[in-house]
């Protein structure tokens, strides 16, 4: 089923988009609180990227195997997962490294999901390595036929790693161009390092041009723009089976991670505020409706936090579990 990128979003879609953005923001705030209350050792996530990450999740063709989209995410994708229908409580579980954490059984940091039934490959902390793996899943999809594509996300600073170039090289080979949507969420920072003095490129996306890769830099703070541009890039990749490099300018509203304090910043645009003002002006939602929605999510997650706190921790004896698989899970599915 193909989506017309240029069809304006219906009110219903806008309301859903907004609701997911709010839920995404509230989830991150809860995760930060968990960290600050000692219910987790480390927080990293995507508050400020909801306007891009939610449309992305809504547009992903979700499922298992090559006819669906393969997803090579990094650690700021919680709102995308919500938009795909993930249970936010699972994010809390990984934050609290409980035995019930479905993503890693309490092994990995929060924000590092793995969901095979949705083709979400295990998120790793190693910056940019996902870009070396994306060509592999895309190759499988190219051969399989259909509309499934590979989507890989990462930050701006990370593009300095050779792995970003690897993805450009491998997806644009004349002998087998690949259906990869390469996404760079550019928040103009790598931890404490400002982008400007480090990047000779005007736009990161320009790096695609030499390879004949379609590329575009967009305002990722506007969810309607993001929807349109993601949908259009996806449609290009789904139909031409060729790569697209999409750079999205986003904000980083709580700094890099808990390592830098996880405190709100005031000098960056908040995509949610902007969107809410527009929804109000367009009379699609009232302030009260939005406030009560936020309150509802906040209450739900506060309760969930309490529950998760009581869930069991993994047993030290399990450290050797799953070093090897006995069955082939990824074939046949």
């Amino acid at each position: 089923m193909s989506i017309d990128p240029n069809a304006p979003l219906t009110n219903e879609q806008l309301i859903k988009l907004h609701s997911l953005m709010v839920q995404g923001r509230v989830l991150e705030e809860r995760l930060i609180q968990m960290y600050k209350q000692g219910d987790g050792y480390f927080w990293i996530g995507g508050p400020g990227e909801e306007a891009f990450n939610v449309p992305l999740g809504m547009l992903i063709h979700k499922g298992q195997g090559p006819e669906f989209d393969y997803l090579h995410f990094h650690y700021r994708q919680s709102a995308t997962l919500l938009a795909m229908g993930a249970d936010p409580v699972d994010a809390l579980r990984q934050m609290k490294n409980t035995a019930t954490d479905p993503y890693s059984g309490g092994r990995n940091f929060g924000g590092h999901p793995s969901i095979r039934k949705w083709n979400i490959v295990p998120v790793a902390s190693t910056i940019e390595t996902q870009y070396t793996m994306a060509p592999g899943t895309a190759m499988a999809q190219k051969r399989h036929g259909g509309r499934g594509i590979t989507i890989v996300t990462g930050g701006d600073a990370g593009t300095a790693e050779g792995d970003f170039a690897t993805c450009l090289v491998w997806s644009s080979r004349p002998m087998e161009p690949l259906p990869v949507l390469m996404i760079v969420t550019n928040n103009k920072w790598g931890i404490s390092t400002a982008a400007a003095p480090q990047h000779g490129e005007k736009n990161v996306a320009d790096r695609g041009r030499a390879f004949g890769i379609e590329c575009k830099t967009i305002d990722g703070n506007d969810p309607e723009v993001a929807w349109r541009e993601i949908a259009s890039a996806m449609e290009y990749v789904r139909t031409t089976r060729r790569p697209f490099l999409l750079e999205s300018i986003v904000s980083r509203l709580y700094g890099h991670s808990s390592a830098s304090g996880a405190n709100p910043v005031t000098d960056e645009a908040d995509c949610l505020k902007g969107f809410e003002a527009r929804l109000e002006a367009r009379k699609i939602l009232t302030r009260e409706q939005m406030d009560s929605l936020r309150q509802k999510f906040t209450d739900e997650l506060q309760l969930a936090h309490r529950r998760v706190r009581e869930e069991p921790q993994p047993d030290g004896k399990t450290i050797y579990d799953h070093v090897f698989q006995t069955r082939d899970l990824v074939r046949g599915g």
Partner: protein
Amino acid sequence: MSSMIQAVRMALHVAEERHGVTDIFGEDVGPPLGGAFTATQGLKRAWNSPLDERGIVGTSIGLGLAGCRNVAEIQFCDYAFNTIDLLKLGGMMSWASHGDWNCPITIMTPVGSGIRGSIYHSHSFDATATHIHGWKIAMPSNPKDAYALLLSCIVDPNPCMFLIPKALMRSRAAPGEEIPGIDVDDRGLSKLIDAPLGDRSKWTPQWPDTPDLFIPVGEAATVRKGRDLTVVSYGRTLPLCVKAADSLAAEGIEAEVIDLRWLAPYDWERIKESVKRTGRALFVNEDTEITNFGEHLARRTTEEFFYELLAPPKVLAGAAIPGIGLADNLEMASVPQLPSITQAMRDLAASKP
């Protein structure tokens, strides 16, 4: 008698025909060359990658995650040292996802000395590989094992490394150790499956009808029985150990030789049984000797049955230097050779408690 490289090629053929291998790839793996050592000539699924080892390992992992069983080659293991992080990630797909994923891939790469490869075509990879957990690691010392180990790697649902000793690429199967189904002589086999020199665009190989052979993961082989000492080795040094053992028989020394074949997981039961019986253990490999896999085996031997040993376990390995020099004298002095192996066995047999 097939050579090891022919055995590898035949295994890959069987794998793409019967075991669903979708991709065999790497630098110069596809036509026209079919591999720096001819391992991938004439295969349907073989293709040339960009010159980028990180892309090769990453793409292999990606294909694996998408359910495509594949074999990726690193042209020389010397060129895998920029991919250790990716190998670590490949090895932890199952573990880090708490069993949600597996990654059915095989990374194949030539290792070790023996062809005057100088500094950057002589490295070993066993010390490095065995320190990357989550991989199964095989290393053959003869053509038939190469065939069976590679097929075993390919059908395994986990990431596997297949390390091919460069020095043994052209070694031939011993009598009685031929892969079944090959009913022609060496020249005949070469005509069937070795690409001709020059233009190959119209050539197609005629594959002999070889069966599935597997070696259970973690199963070593005792290739020579003996009562006086146990020698554990693999790859290039294995045939040298056998040769040394044979020659020492004339001196009344009977060495047992174990071909480890799988470095991870490895056949501890077999080593244990043998060393407890002989009381003497020598571990031979050619990787450099500081933080070496043989040192792991030696320390486990010491830790677990110290009081049953008649002599200190010994490790014979490569010199701890940055590389292997090109000149003959340099290579000879850098890694174990027949004389040093023989001497180490003789010394160990002679050492009295």
